[in-house]
């Protein structure tokens, strides 16, 4: 038996630069954690930024022009992977900067925490660029275990600890479910490689093992995505975690899982869409209903946003469902557009919250925002933009994303999903408006801990960029972004078992 030792080319190093630079960064940060001399928060921040920027550079300049897999299929980068990694790194960068500018600066910029943070990001970057289940699983665990720790122990308190433990136990449970599903798929197909699965599955239509495998795998992924009814960790954990980590969970984790799910649905499982389509539709419907309805009465902003993120996962799941259809290659573009939009909005909204929080009050209630428009008009304005954007009102990116997603869904005759989505959107407007009402239309109430945030150009810049990007992607620039995403979706579609010709836009 001849052994093919994988050759490590310079091209591979370029392509995997994101992962490597993050690994290096995490090790350095870890060492900083035990060094008095180099462990100052500034130094840690420098290491964080350096490695993140290096990784971003790798994403932009190192990746190959066509989708290539390295190390016998371990590492797969192409447009989709690049978009995923780019988004994750961008989110991580924003979270880092926001942490460095707010009250948790000293706690976050410790060597060990920074190291964990970078490792989480490493895991995500690995996961979105994987073609086999093992790598995918390792990447997933890397990010999950790190998050279990960061949720509860950056700024430990009863609340955050409780959230961490809930997240951990349920996460471990979900991992088991996911693995069980993978195991069944493995038994059925005899391979752990996604691209190979795609070749074998068409022969296994209607096989119960495949069905069960898909079912359990979907449950596990649904958990990470926060789809109802696997969502119940989300409100607790979002509320418990430091807001920066909440933002990371709300955005980067979704990016990570969705990219993988796209690979699954459009690639490996494309042939058995009649298995995952009804299940995903079920998840999407329940998510949209539960997320939107439950968010109505929440008192904590983060908790409300958690339920809202459940609902948004539901909308994204609509686009996932559209992947099963045959009509065109828009669904991926629509999904990614929605995802990018949602990430921008979430990051913006959580940034505003982070900025407002302080030591005594790190879990803002909606009532705490009363009269914000008077005290901090620009923050209130930004928050209002984000809320309208969440609700999907033009001229924001939220609307465009929703439009594209519904478009994808209706192209594939998913009427029921769209109807529930519409109802959900209408309901959702109500709770987003609650925040606006508090900010603009109520007088400030006396709160126990007044919100007196520091002025910070960094925060200003981040929130301002989010607002501008939000509006620009809703009005002037959708075409530019969309074009690049369409190439991504063509890459995905190229792998798919095609049943009908792909249509071109006029």
């Amino acid at each position, binding site marked *: 038996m001849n052994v093919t030792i994988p050759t490590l080319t310079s091209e591979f190093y370029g392509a995997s630069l994101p992962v490597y630079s993050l690994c290096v960064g995490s090790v350095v940060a870890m060492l900083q954690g035990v060094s008095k001399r180099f462990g100052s928060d500034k130094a840690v921040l420098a290491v964080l930024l350096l490695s993140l920027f290096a990784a971003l550079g790798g994403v932009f300049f190192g990746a190959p022009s066509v989708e290539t897999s390295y190390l016998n299929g371990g590492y797969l980068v192409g447009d989709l992977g690049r978009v995923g990694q780019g988004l994750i790194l961008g989110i991580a960068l924003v979270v880092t900067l926001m942490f460095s500018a707010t009250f948790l600066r000293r706690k976050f910029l410790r060597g060990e925490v920074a190291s964990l943070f970078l490792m989480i990001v490493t895991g995500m970057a690995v996961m979105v660029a994987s073609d086999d*289940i*093992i790598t995918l*699983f*390792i990447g997933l*665990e890397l990010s999950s*275990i790190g998050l*279990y*720790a960061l949720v*509860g*122990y950056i700024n*430990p308190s*009863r*609340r955050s*600890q*409780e*959230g*961490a*433990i*809930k997240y*951990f*136990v349920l996460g*471990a*449970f979900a*991992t*088991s479910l996911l*693995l*069980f599903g*993978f*195991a*069944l798929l*493995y*038994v059925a197909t*005899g*391979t*752990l490689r996604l691209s190979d699965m795609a070749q074998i599955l068409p022969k296994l239509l209607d096989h119960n093992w495949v069905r069960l495998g898909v079912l359990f795998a979907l449950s596990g992924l649904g958990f990470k995505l926060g789809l109802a009814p696997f969502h119940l960790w989300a*409100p*607790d954990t979002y*509320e*418990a975690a430091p807001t920066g980590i909440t933002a990371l969970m709300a955005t980067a984790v979704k990016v990570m899982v969705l990219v993988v799910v796209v690979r699954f649905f459009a690639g490996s499982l494309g042939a058995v869409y009649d298995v995952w389509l009804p299940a995903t539709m079920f998840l999407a419907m329940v998510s949209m209903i539960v997320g939107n309805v439950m968010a109505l*009465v*929440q*008192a*904590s902003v983060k*908790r409300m946003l958690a339920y809202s993120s459940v609902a948004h996962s539901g909308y994204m799941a609509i686009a996932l469902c559209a992947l099963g259809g045959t009509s065109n290659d828009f669904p991926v573009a629509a999904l990614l557009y929605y995802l990018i939009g949602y990430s921008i909005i979430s990051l913006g909204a959580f940034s505003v919250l982070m900025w407002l929080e302080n030591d005594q009050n790190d879990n803002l209630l909606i009532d705490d925002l009363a009269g914000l428009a008077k005290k901090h008009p620009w923050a209130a304005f930004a928050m209002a933009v984000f809320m309208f954007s969440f609700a999907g009102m033009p001229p924001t990116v939220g609307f465009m994303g929703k439009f594209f997603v519904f478009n994808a869904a209706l192209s594939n005759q998913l009427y029921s999903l769209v109807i529930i989505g519409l109802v959900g959107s209408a309901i959702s407007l109500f709770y987003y408006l609650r925040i606006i009402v508090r900010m603009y239309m109520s007088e400030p109430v006396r709160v126990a801990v007044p919100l007196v945030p520091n002025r910070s150009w960094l925060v200003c810049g981040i929130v301002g960029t989010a607002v501008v990007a939000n509006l620009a992607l809703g009005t002037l620039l959708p075409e530019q972004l969309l074009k690049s995403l369409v190439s991504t979706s063509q890459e995905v579609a190229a792998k798919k078992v095609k049943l009908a010709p792909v249509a071109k836009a006029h």
Partner: protein
Amino acid sequence: MISINHYLALATVMFLCGTLGVLFRRNLLLVLMSVELMLNAVNLVFVAGSRLVNNLDGQVMVFFIITVAACEAGVGLAMVIALYRRYGTVETSFLRMLRG
């Protein structure tokens, strides 16, 4: 003849036990043990599958799962200790601050 189906059934039983443990035991340590049980069920499926399909990927996967299980156990137990420090118990019923 013992076929793959038997192994799958056995794995299902283990998985069920683990699931019930997670769902119904109030002791956090027991919950963690139940998760280990579930992972073992998965391992069984992988190994049996590996034999079935003449492919060693499954066994490699088990290797990694064991690694991850160890990591999870380490982190989980650390959490249990931290919890115990704060609450003086490892009962999950004390975790009811976050709700609504």
